[in-house]
């Protein structure tokens, strides 16, 4: 199966002139785990997600501790988020792998697992955003394909 048979033609994206605060708004209101970051020509230049923002606001030393359950609530996250909330979204962007329409479902799924991404941008040959692909979209498309094939076989019988 090819990416072009599966992907979601949704051009929701974050542009590089937005702030971290606006990115969080878009992610939350659209209920998306992650959104491509694009320049003014809609070329994909990165990826912003709940994970990429969390990664920045959890201090490095906290990540190194075996556990955090013994910490009292002293508002570390609020303090860290306050310091970057109104900064350009590029501060929380991550690099992202991309797929093209002619790539296979297997390529897309493998890339997502390898790079821990829930969403991959689908781009044309000039790296312009065409839509996104998710693991769930791939899985559901495959289920539909199997069902269709079965139905066809039965009809033929």
């Amino acid at each position, binding site marked *: 199966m090819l990416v072009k048979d599966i992907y979601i033609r949704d051009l929701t994206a974050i542009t590089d002139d937005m702030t971290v605060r606006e990115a969080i708004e878009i992610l939350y209101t659209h209920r998306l785990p992650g959104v491509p970051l694009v320049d003014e020509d809609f070329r994909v230049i990165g990826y912003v997600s709940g994970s990429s923002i969390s990664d920045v606001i959890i201090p490095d*030393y906290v990540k190194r*501790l*075996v556990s955090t359950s013994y*910490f*009292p609530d002293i508002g570390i996250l609020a303090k860290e988020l306050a310091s970057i909330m109104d900064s350009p979204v590029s501060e929380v962007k991550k690099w992202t792998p991309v797929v093209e329409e002619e790539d296979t479902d297997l390529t897309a799924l493998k890339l997502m697992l390898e790079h821990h991404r829930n969403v991959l941008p689908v781009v044309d040959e000039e790296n312009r955003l065409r839509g996104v692909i998710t693991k769930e979209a791939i899985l559901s498309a495959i289920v539909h394909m199997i069902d269709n094939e079965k139905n066809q076989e039965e009809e033929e019988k």
Partner: protein
Amino acid sequence: MHITFTVAVIALFALVYVFLMTDIRHRTAVAMLGAAATIFVAEVFYGNTEDFWSFIDFETLALLMGMMIIVGILAHSGFFEYLGVRTLQLSKGDPVKFFFGMFFLTAFTSAFLDNVTTVLLMTPLVLYVTAILEIDPMPFLLGEIMASNIGGTATLIGDPPNIMIGTGAGLSFIQFIKYETPISILNVIMAAFFIYFIFKDKFTLKHPDGVEEKIKGFEPDKAIKNRYLMRAGLAILLFVIVLFFVSDIIGVSEAVVALLGGSLALFLVIDHETVEKVVMQVEWTTLLFFMSLFIIVGYLDSTGVLDMVAQWMVKVSGGDKVVLVMVILWGSAVISAFVDNIPFTATMIPVISSLIARDPSLNTHNVLWWALSMGACLGGNGTVIGASANVVVSGIAKKNGIDINFKNYAKVGAPVTIFILIISSVYLYFLATL
């Protein structure tokens, strides 16, 4: 010995040292290539004599591996964070008390466990607590580095140079306790006060209200991720330390004790996955580094060059024991401040052995060995690259936006090191003249 062979071995050894100093390649890669090339040259000259196997001090390797396994299990259990949080609570949020508490805790832990593991686990906690208290983390970070290096000097198992000296010179755990622990305790206390006085005005809380409330919110018990692992790890650590104390009496080497403890620790882990993890975390690259150095230094020793160095040292010191001790102490310290103390100690062990073989009266109370140990371990505090703990702490600090560089480190590290070395000199002077 063939003169061409001698020249080739010295050249290879020098080349390895240059690469280690410039740090442009990983130290293990440098040492392995150096060892392999030296064996190659040796076999070209003398055929396959398999000499290199006898150069490897497997006791040192076994001791290091055994202790690395035990510390790995304790690290997994969350025990170190528990200790750190307990220290914080006992200090009631008073930065001065917390500073001294962490300093002594780190020194004590480093005396029995690997310095790098100790600071790797303590540094994040220090950064976290100083962030809560809103105080400058610098004195605490420098404290971590120096406490671990000075504490590591205290016992046979505290620091790699001591392990090498212990097995290389045949000194027992008890001898280290008798001759190095008391002076190390004094050094730890003096260094803590010294650093405290340097940073005296950095320990004031900006917002003293509510700090005690914040500290009360910590629940140290929750820091323990795996209670069973912690108990097993601690029981084995205790078992191993007790055996270290009596190893001399029952005639078992420290290496075998550590090996027994390490394997028993793995056996007690139960689940296969954690065993894999703990074994993976043993610093195999460091062990390979040791192995390679033993081979290079073994060949160098076989050429008689190190014997000549020993002769030269006797000549320089005029055969005077005190002068010799001071040359070893201060010379080792200066070199270890800039070069990895592991290859340095490996090279110096045959030199000191040769000195003692020439004139056993130079080594009353094993004073030459203690001078080497103190010089190599304490010298590591001199610069930001002097020891592994320094590199680890400054690396973590950098990732959290705190710059510990050559310059700002030296301002504190150099005077503290000199101060500690002066105290050690006085001690060694008495030991040498006693």
